């Protein structure tokens, strides 16, 4: 066991798998000599050579297209997209090719590409360095959409993603890279060192790709969330003093419905929270499914706390960010409901 922040955990996952399987290659902008703008691949090119940690041109479509071809030829490519906001030029290759190849060839061809990309706001990045576009990937049949909220999961899920023969879009909430941010930008940053999920085995282990995790059990309310909001939700529940069960969805698609449903059937109340824009967001799927399965247990409408239906503004990122106040307000309203 070692103390790792999320960047180190991700790097460790890559290191462990590159060491284990010569077919694992990394491809992305600035990932090689420099080690990535967030340092996730730092040192890997020195260790594994520039033929396995490959600096790529600024061409997200090309990176993903080429990675698909590499995967078809037996490699296990891990593509890095520098910011999730820049994944769209590769969208066609993801939707029309990566997600569909196995299906349309009945498994004769497939390409086990993992796409890693930092998402989310809270770093004063403005609207083109803050997006959380997971909803549009979760809707695409044939790819797995994953978003860890802590170093332990990040490493275990990333190893599973790379080893999976399915393509995976792996979102890394960049605000969590260095610490379990609880939503209060004015508080001094906390590091992962003191967090139990900052304890990460140095070697190989996996976290399965299709289970949600109950972060904290509780009886009065279920908060279904993922990514940065996991920590904000905990802080908000603590602040209210409600005995909340907090679930980290982490594998967004396919989704572990049972864990969610069992919890809401138990607590009778449910709040769904994510950082992305609310309208048409992934929370809609969560709510739709939970209300269907738990209708007769629900004592209040399922609430959603999410980013506004606007772009993510630079100056007002803390007004955009669904922080503690908004969660507290939603929890209070929900607990007050008949």
């Amino acid at each position: 066991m070692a103390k790792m922040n999320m960047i180190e955990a991700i790097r460790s996952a890559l290191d462990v798998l590159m060491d284990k399987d010569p077919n694992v290659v990394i491809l992305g902008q600035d990932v090689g000599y420099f080690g990535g703008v967030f340092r996730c691949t730092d040192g890997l090119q020195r260790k594994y050579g520039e033929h396995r940690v490959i600096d790529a041109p600024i061409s997200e479509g090309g990176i993903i297209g080429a990675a698909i071809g590499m995967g078809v030829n037996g490699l296990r490519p891990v593509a890095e997209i520098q910011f999730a906001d820049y994944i769209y030029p590769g969208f066609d290759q993801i939707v029309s090719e990566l997600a569909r190849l196995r299906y349309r060839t009945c498994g004769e061809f497939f390409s086990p590409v993992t796409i890693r990309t930092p998402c989310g706001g809270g770093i004063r990045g403005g609207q083109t360095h803050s997006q959380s576009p997971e909803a549009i990937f979760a809707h695409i049949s044939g790819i797995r959409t994953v978003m860890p909220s802590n170093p332990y999961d990040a490493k275990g899920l990333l190893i599973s993603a790379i080893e999976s023969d399915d393509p995976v879009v792996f979102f890394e909430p960049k605000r969590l890279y260095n610490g379990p941010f609880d939503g209060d930008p004015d508080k001094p940053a906390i590091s992962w060192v003191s967090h139990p999920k900052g304890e990460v085995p140095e070697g190989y282990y996996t976290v399965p790709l299709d289970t949600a995790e109950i972060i904290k059990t509780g009886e009065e309310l279920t908060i279904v969330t993922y990514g940065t909001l996991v920590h904000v939700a905990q802080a908000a529940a603590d602040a209210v003093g409600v005995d909340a069960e907090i679930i980290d969805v982490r594998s967004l698609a396919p989704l572990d419905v049972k864990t969610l449903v069992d919890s809401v059937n138990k607590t009778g109340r449910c709040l769904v929270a994510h950082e992305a824009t609310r309208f048409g967001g992934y929370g809609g799927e969560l709510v739709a499914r939970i209300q269907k399965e738990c209708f007769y247990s629900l004592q209040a409408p399922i609430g959603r706390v999410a980013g506004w239906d606007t772009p993510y503004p630079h100056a007002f990122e803390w007004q955009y960010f669904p922080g503690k106040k908004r969660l507290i307000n939603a929890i209070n309203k929900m607990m007050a409901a008949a």
Partner: protein
Amino acid sequence: MRKKSRLHIPSSSARPGEKPDFEYLNLSPAGSVDKPPIDSRTRDIEHLSTGLVRVLDDDHQAQGPWNPDIDPAELQTALRWMLLNRVFDQRMWKIQRQGRISFYIEATGEEAISIAQAMALRPGDMCFPSYRNQGLYMYRGVKLVDMMCQCLSNTRDMCKGRQLPIMYHSRKANVFSISGNLGTQYPHAVGWAMASAIKGEDHIAASWVGDGSTAEADFHHALTFAAIYQAPVILNVVNNQWAISTFQGFAGGERRPFAARGLGLGIPGLRVDGNDLLAIYSTTLWAAARARRGGGPTLIELVTYRGGAHSTSDDPTKYRPKDEWASFPLGDPIERLKQHLIALGHWSEDQHEKLEEELKVEVLAAWKEAQQYGTMTEEPFLDPATMFDDVFAETPSNLESQRRYMLEIEGS
């Protein structure tokens, strides 16, 4: 009032009712383009992108340095494959017209491309085709009946009914899956070739797109990556003059040939008579040898003509002269190889007719067999429950429950 628009709008050389006009094609006489060594630097062979490599001349003789000197027996085999491709297409077209399959795309007039290039590549080389490269599957051993079953979406369909007709694939034959999305296969070929290089193997990749599809982003991605990493890949542009109703000027072909598109990245380009099996074969061999010895990518433009409609959904008389193909100066690739063989004394009209009959019988027999495995309207039918397989490597529970529900509903 608004001033007159100054926008330049490309215009096709002839529309319905007008006389076909291929003046715009810049033709070189057969044998006139030189054949440089495969290790030539791109800048020294730029002229190959504006000339036109041709071997067969108007008198059906093979000419010049690109003459591959293929054994007549092999040429006969090539002719047989091309003819099979055509006969197959004709049959399937008719079958579609009878409503027995939903869709079809023919390669009429472009058969030399798939056959010559399949001949020039090695079995371990990987092909990333467009939808007009059915010849690749045939030549590389995919059985006619299997291709027909695909078109029928029947119980033996390699795609289990999931894909539109003609969207074949074959792992065994090393021919990739055809996509409905234009051009997406181009970067796959480059990535595949990069992987081959990374693994220290000497297999190469080849891919094909149409003239129209060169405008897609993936064309640029593929060329850029191929140039940067010197990927061992052959990137073919099949310039059949048309993209549905849109002539090649709307893909940027008005000023420079497509063969020149990679020059700015240092990728050599060969402009080749796409209806001349010998020229295609020998330029492909050249590009393959170049790639295999680490010389990087080559772009080959194959100048041809889409002899038929774009697809069974299309009616080309609406947008181009009826007799345009007949006026195409590079002729019909099958006719040209046939005449060459006759000129060599290794073929005759009689043999040709006999061969055509034979192939028709072969195709018909395959069709009879294919139908036994079901059609869209006749049993046996594919099991719809299979539609939930292969979305993922292992079917997750949400799809399993949708499968159960679907069966319940459909059974009701």
